[in-house]
């Protein structure tokens, strides 16, 4: 018989190891092949491999702390206090093979089958920590619009607006930080968060923050391997050397190597857009619309947005800008399209977390917070970005064809509600609906297609 186990206690100094040893002694006596992973204050040691877990007849968890059981889905699992393994290990060997089969909630099974390995799992770790920040920040901003109008007037509304901005702004360091955390454990967090913050400050968008997270994670992973210090100094590694070296290296690379092309891209596009004056307005709408979606508030989207804002500066009283209108409405498409796909059209293509994020993406989209689509885009960049870009471009072009115009740079649906604020408001809503539907169906279709292809391979 083969058995695997985990031991863990609250201080992680003695009981963890005594329990492990006693299980091993008792197992040997009964000719049971046993391996015990210890989760103590030194960290996890003697870590169980996937193969060992797959081969085991039963799992024993002897712990007085909460141990993550995700790895043991479908195994017979006995969970007891750590002292039981010290006191009567024999008894545990009798009980474990008869223990109930552990299954992570039925929910998991219905979810999209995802390959949880390597780069993808790091990506998902970052995204799952980021989602609540996007949701909290976005909803707060929407609330501020609801209370105080599109300029969030009034003390309460402006305070909520500020809160929303702070929560939203934290999404970048959280994304970068937890991607790196997933790769390199705790020491990855610092350079990852710094890299995310830098990406945010130089308008590198979520792709920049992701890149920074991966850079930070693998840098620390590598540093941990090559830096070998005499034991007298080993205590300095996690508190002084790793944080400082990794932040310096990752930060400088982000700033001077990654940053240069991104800043150049942003400036280049801005100049290029400015040179386009006199271009056919429908083509311009198509172009701006696509740009608003292609990197979701990254360097390209930001350039398009500020081009729209610039068009407001020389408006006379009572005039509206068609350019700004096209920019805003197409920026609303990505989150709305992802909400449509994840909560209506293709629910089972998304994880539970994503479906929850999808519900709030409705609100975020209506509030012109394109970031609402980022959790989806970060998890599956190519398919999501391509799909939302198509719909956004169509919406941008339609907005121009319908000659819609606005005079404010933000507010989303809250602007629609103000009588007279939007030229041709009904057609404006139609343009939004068409683009949302196109992108929503498109992203659902490509996801279904790719899953079928994946299934055929297996």
């Amino acid at each position: 018989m083969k058995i695997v186990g985990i031991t863990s206690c609250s201080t992680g100094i003695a009981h963890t190891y005594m329990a492990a040893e006693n299980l091993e002694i008792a197992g040997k006596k009964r000719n049971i092949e046993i391996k015990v992973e210890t989760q103590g204050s030194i960290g996890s040691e003697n870590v169980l491999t996937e193969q060992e877990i797959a081969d085991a007849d039963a799992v024993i968890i002897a712990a007085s702390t909460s141990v993550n059981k995700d790895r043991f889905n479908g195994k017979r699992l006995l969970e007891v206090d750590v002292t039981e393994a010290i006191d009567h290990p024999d008894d545990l060997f009798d009980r474990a093979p008869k223990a109930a089969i552990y299954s992570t909630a039925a929910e998991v099974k219905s979810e999209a089958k995802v390959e949880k390995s390597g780069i993808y799992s790091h990506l998902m770790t970052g995204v799952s920590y980021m989602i609540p920040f996007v949701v909290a920040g976005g909803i707060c901003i929407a609330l501020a619009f609801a209370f105080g109008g599109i300029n969030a007037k009034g003390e309460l509304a402006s305070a909520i607006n500020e809160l929303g901005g702070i929560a939203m702004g934290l999404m970048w360091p959280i994304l970068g930080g937890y991607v790196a955390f997933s790769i390199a454990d705790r020491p990855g967090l610092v350079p990852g968060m710094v890299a995310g913050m830098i990406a945010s400050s130089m308008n590198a968008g979520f792709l920049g923050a992701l890149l920074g997270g991966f850079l930070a994670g693998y840098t620390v992973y590598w540093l941990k391997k090559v830096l070998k210090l005499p034991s007298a100094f080993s205590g300095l590694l996690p508190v002084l050397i790793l944080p400082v070296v990794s932040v310096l290296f990752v930060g400088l690379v982000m700033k001077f190597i990654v940053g240069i092309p991104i800043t150049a891209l942003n400036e280049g596009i801005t100049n290029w857009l400015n040179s386009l004056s006199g271009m056919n307005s429908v083509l311009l709408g198509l172009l701006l619309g696509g740009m608003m979606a292609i990197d979701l508030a990254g360097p390209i989207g930001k350039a398009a947005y500020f081009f729209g804002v610039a068009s407001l500066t020389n408006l006379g009283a009572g005039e509206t800008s068609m350019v700004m209108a096209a920019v805003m409405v197409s920026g609303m498409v990505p989150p709305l399209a992802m909400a449509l796909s994840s909560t209506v059209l293709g629910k089972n293509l998304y994880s539970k977390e994503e479906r929850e994020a999808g519900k709030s993406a409705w609100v975020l989209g209506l509030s012109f917070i394109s970031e609402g689509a980022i959790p989806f885009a970060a998890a599956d960049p190519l398919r999501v970005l391509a799909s939302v870009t198509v719909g956004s471009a169509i919406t941008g072009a339609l907005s121009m064809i319908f000659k819609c115009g606005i005079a404010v740079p933000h507010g989303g649906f809250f602007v629609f509600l103000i009588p007279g604020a939007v030229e041709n408001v009904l057609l404006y809503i139609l343009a939004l609906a068409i683009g949302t539907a196109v992108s929503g169906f498109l992203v659902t279709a490509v996801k279904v297609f790719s899953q079928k292809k994946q299934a055929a391979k297996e």
Partner: protein
Amino acid sequence: MTEIRDVLKPAFINLDLQATDKQAAIRELANTFVHKGAVTNDSVYLDAVMKREEESTTGIGFGVAIPHGKSAAVTEPSLGFGRSQAGIEYDSMDGKPVHLMFLIAVPETSNDEHLKILSKLSRKLMHEDVRQKLMTVADVEEIYQIFE
């Protein structure tokens, strides 16, 4: 290389504990830490140990107890060993008196080397022959030999 001697110093070994009840025995052994400066404030440290005892007894049975406390009052990771032939009333898991007591003191932050020593020692204690030898050893050197 950190060794068992760096943690379990000769001064922390008492082969003939006088106390017969749990609290007094822990205090008796903790005093050796204070003398050597390994613990700066014994009442803070003892509070941490007794708090841990309240969670669940560290009298793990077979006459062994491993009371431990993590506290800022600890300056360096230390291990004390006390033996009582008569036995200490300890409220152990198996209800029997304790003859071998290992008192562990860990600072709030400590390096892994020391914790590894403690984890190895904890594992050793689960072996019956180790426990029997500990009951009969006469001097400090022999104790080190058992653990090395």
